[in-house]
């Protein structure tokens, strides 16, 4: 009994003192400090570095980047890979997740099957693709056997292969994200719409789509981030000197092959900027859609 009294009496002044300082807030300090030291500082350092080129005035790294034919087109190359890959991933994931929105053995089975490529890692996928999709691989041989194509398939070491690998590694990720959003939506809303005469397409278009659009935006952003920083597959599976010379490769070369920290930081900053631009555009676009709670019912 005595214990609980002291506890309560201790508790009260703490609540009173919260106005001045809340000890709970100190919990966030270590993590915040860590991010400041190891994320914000490098970021700021890189930003400064990009304006301190080895020679020339403060903008010359940027000038080099935008005037060199080996550097600035990498931005477009990366976008040309990342945007279609994200679009494909989202375009495939949305209908499939929608189809599987009701819990069933089938859903569990597919979900489990799709987690596998996520856990595999880029490198194993790249190795597998080189073997399986190569000109002498099983896919190519099967298609030739079935007379579906003449001559071996060329699905490795080009643009298509990197795109495929981005889909393989990105699709399951997007699918699981979208699935978690869709299953979070109260199915009674759709049933209510159906009772008012909405066909399946209308149910999707007018009930589900507005509700999951925030989720889709987040999924799009995360998937785009993944695709945009493509590096290993562009090197392992692509043609890193030509059609899949992505911006990561340019930045890496500048940093670790030419020792030009300023140029590398400049490429890294431009990379971050392009990415943030796309993400902001996505978020802005989302603002045009419905905003509101994702669950229906009593709320």
């Amino acid at each position, binding site marked *: 009994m005595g214990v609980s009294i002291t*506890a309560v009496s201790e508790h009260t002044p703490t609540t009173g003192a919260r106005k001045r300082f809340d000890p709970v807030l100190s*919990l966030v300090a270590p993590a915040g400090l860590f991010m400041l030291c190891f994320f914000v500082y*490098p970021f700021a350092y890189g930003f400064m570095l990009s304006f301190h080129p080895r020679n020339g005035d403060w903008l010359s790294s940027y000038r080099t980047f935008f005037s060199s034919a080996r550097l600035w087109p990498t931005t477009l190359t990366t976008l040309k890979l990342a945007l279609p890959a994200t679009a494909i991933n989202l375009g495939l994931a949305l209908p499939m997740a929608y189809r599987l929105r009701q819990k069933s053995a089938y859903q569990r089975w597919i979900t489990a099957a799709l987690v596998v490529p996520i856990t595999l890692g*880029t490198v194993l996928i790249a190795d597998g693709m080189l073997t399986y999709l190569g000109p002498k691989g099983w896919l190519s041989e099967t298609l030739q056997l079935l007379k579906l194509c003449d001559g071996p398939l060329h699905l490795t070491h080009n643009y298509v292969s990197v795109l495929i690998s981005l889909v393989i590694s990105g699709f399951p990720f997007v699918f699981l994200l979208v699935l978690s959003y869709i299953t979070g939506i109260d199915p009674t809303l759709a049933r209510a719409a159906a009772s008012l005469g909405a066909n399946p397409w209308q149910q999707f278009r007018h009930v589900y789509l507005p509700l999951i659009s925030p989720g889709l935006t987040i999924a799009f952003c995360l998937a785009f981030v993944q695709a945009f*920083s493509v590096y290993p597959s562009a090197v392992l599976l692509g043609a890193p000197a030509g059609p899949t010379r992505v911006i990561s490769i340019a930045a890496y070369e500048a940093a670790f092959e030419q020792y030009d920290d300023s140029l*590398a930081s400049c490429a890294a900053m431009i990379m971050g900027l392009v990415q943030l631009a796309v993400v902001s555009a996505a978020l802005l676009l989302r603002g045009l859609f419905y905003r509101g709670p994702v669950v229906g019912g009593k709320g």
Partner: protein
Amino acid sequence: MTLAADNSTSRRALGAWNGLLNALMFFFVANIGLLIAAVAVNSFAKRWLGTWLPDGWTASWYTSAWEEFQLPSVLWVTVEVVAAVVSLSILLGVPAAYALARREFPGKRALMLLFLLPLMVPPMTYGIPLATAMYKIGLAGTLPGVVLANLIPMLPFVILVMTPFIEQIDPNLEAAARVCGAGMGRMFLYVLGHVRAHVPRRRSRLADPRRGALLRRFRRRCSCSAVGRRNGHDLYARDAPLAGHRAPVRQPHSARLARQGAPEPAMNDGLPRTLKLHPRDDVVIAKGLLERGTTVDTDVGPVSLAETVAPGHKVAVRARDVNDPVHRYGHIIGLASAPIRPGDHVHLHNLRQPERTEQREVGSDLPYISDARPDETRYFDGYLRGDGRIGTRNYVAILSTVNCSASVSRLVRDRFQDVQRTYPNVDGVIALTHKGGCGHVLGGDDHALLERVLDGYAHHPNIGAFIVIGLGCEVMQAAPMVERHRRSVLSHDPFPVVGVQQEGGVRKAVDAAAAAVSRLLPIANTARRTRRPARDLVLATNCGGSDGHSGITANPALGAAVDLLVGLGGTGVLGETPEIIGAEHLLIRRARSSAVATKLTDRIEWWERYLGAHGVDASNNPSPGNRAGGITTLAEKSLGGVSKGGTTPLVDVVGYAERIKERGFVYMDTPGYDPVSVTGMVAGGANILCFTTGRGSVFGCKPVPSIKLASNSALYQRMEEDMDIDCGVILEGVSTESVGRRILDEVLQVASGKKTKSELAGVGEEEFAPWVRGPVL
């Protein structure tokens, strides 16, 4: 009626739609399954090329992976990193998530943004500056560095996953715990800890330093497949973008040194104005015009210059009395002829050429031992041959004994252009042809020399198998050479000799030789790379197309790399005798013994006679132009070239194309002409070459990979597709030592199979050029 029709159409459409989705899903999952199956099958395959299933099955990849990559230690490091990252991110992230979930406070949105941003910007954006910062404080490449780098995306992930989850936990549970007297720590442990145990463990996926280990394994497999080879260069060059993704397994120290891009700290306003070529040097070199009054850092602190110093000229950093030796490149370039104070301009007025007697004291310029620590062994993946030597490539060679069989050799070679498709472990079939082989004095100097070269190439560890094609009547007969090769690595049968005259003409000879090569290819293809210590490397050095920068950037940097390699027990080979005539004392003073010194002086005397017979002045004295450029003495001039050989003791001197047997710094007597010089070194057993150039040589020397070092950045940028390393960064403040370490890293990677630029360009067969020095009869 219409409603019913509508209904049935929409149901049919829905059915079709669902069918399509099912088919797509099945297609995706099935292909993923097959893709994984392909990797699994490949990992048990003995040989699998273009067939449905492999030729045979083996588990040896797993055992060799276990041994070769020291998997236990790799796995252990992975476990350590994962454990550290997961526990640290939970330790830091969960309390933060708790605070974010439970409290509203000013700046919370900003804080959330701080945790969200790392997931929204590409890792490269913060990774490159982070790596740069880490190299500066020496954290890169260390275990804590890897943990830190992985924490950056991981911590925000934990926070963002945990925050909504903690929000769901009823705060009443905590209140109850507090009422029972639990402090914050116990409350965390019992309430949140218990409930939290049910959070899905998805986040461990993100902490994957194992990608580094996997990548290694993948690279290894790739080096044995045609696909991997074609892109070999890129596979090796860029393993992972972040320092943190590189598991520091085998050489943590070297990994840290691997990419030192950051400019050295010793600079006052931006870039240093002078260049110190070696830590032991008494002088520094002016990089640009140094006006009178400019401050220069010396050993006694900053000193203001008493006179204007032209670019390329020397400024003393240490006081020297009369007759004290003055060092540049770590070597004595002359003796002080007047007292020299720090900050003095050093040139003809206070530096003199030593007398000949002062020069030739064996071992007097006591070389210091390279500071590479002996416990820091480094490795590469090479082909162990029967004679114990190690190859860095695996070629099948067609050796032509005489010019008369050169065309036949090339016709045979042309039939094996695509050989890697079928024999992925063979780097190619090369025809080594030349202009000599006959018209020499039988048993004379040139005959012996050519035989030595051909013999050296045939026995070369980079040659997996060879055939010899001769005409039949030439001086340079093939049979004796092949006879010596009987105890070969791969076959107890003698290697085939094809004679055009015996076979009955070109077409028949080509057919016979091609058949012989076809028999040898499967044998050569059985060779596999294994892990070898760096001491098995024999590094040839050469320069060609030099410019004013070669002597202060690329050559000293290569010298630093040679010092490191010798420190690891390896061998560096220097040649190009005409460059050092008159300054041979530089090497004599480094000689390990008087026997070695005598060998060198004998060679120098031979050259003086040889050049004298052709009416050429043997001396290499600095020209007026050299002097205006800051070169004072003959020694100084020669040192520009000799600095490629580093500073360790000279352990042996060998004749042209003689087998290099000693380990350490070795001199080979070769002429200055690049292809002839390098051909001698390769015949002597060099298994890798570093070639420095200022004007842009595109030298290659199959079967040995040729790494090209550009002496200036302008050249590197102009000819990036041909230059492997830019040494011009030395002029911009990067230290010679760090570029030397970078060169050694490249040497080890190239020795392990990474393609050099010249190999990618397909250059290297025409450069086979045995030295012809005698009369042509």
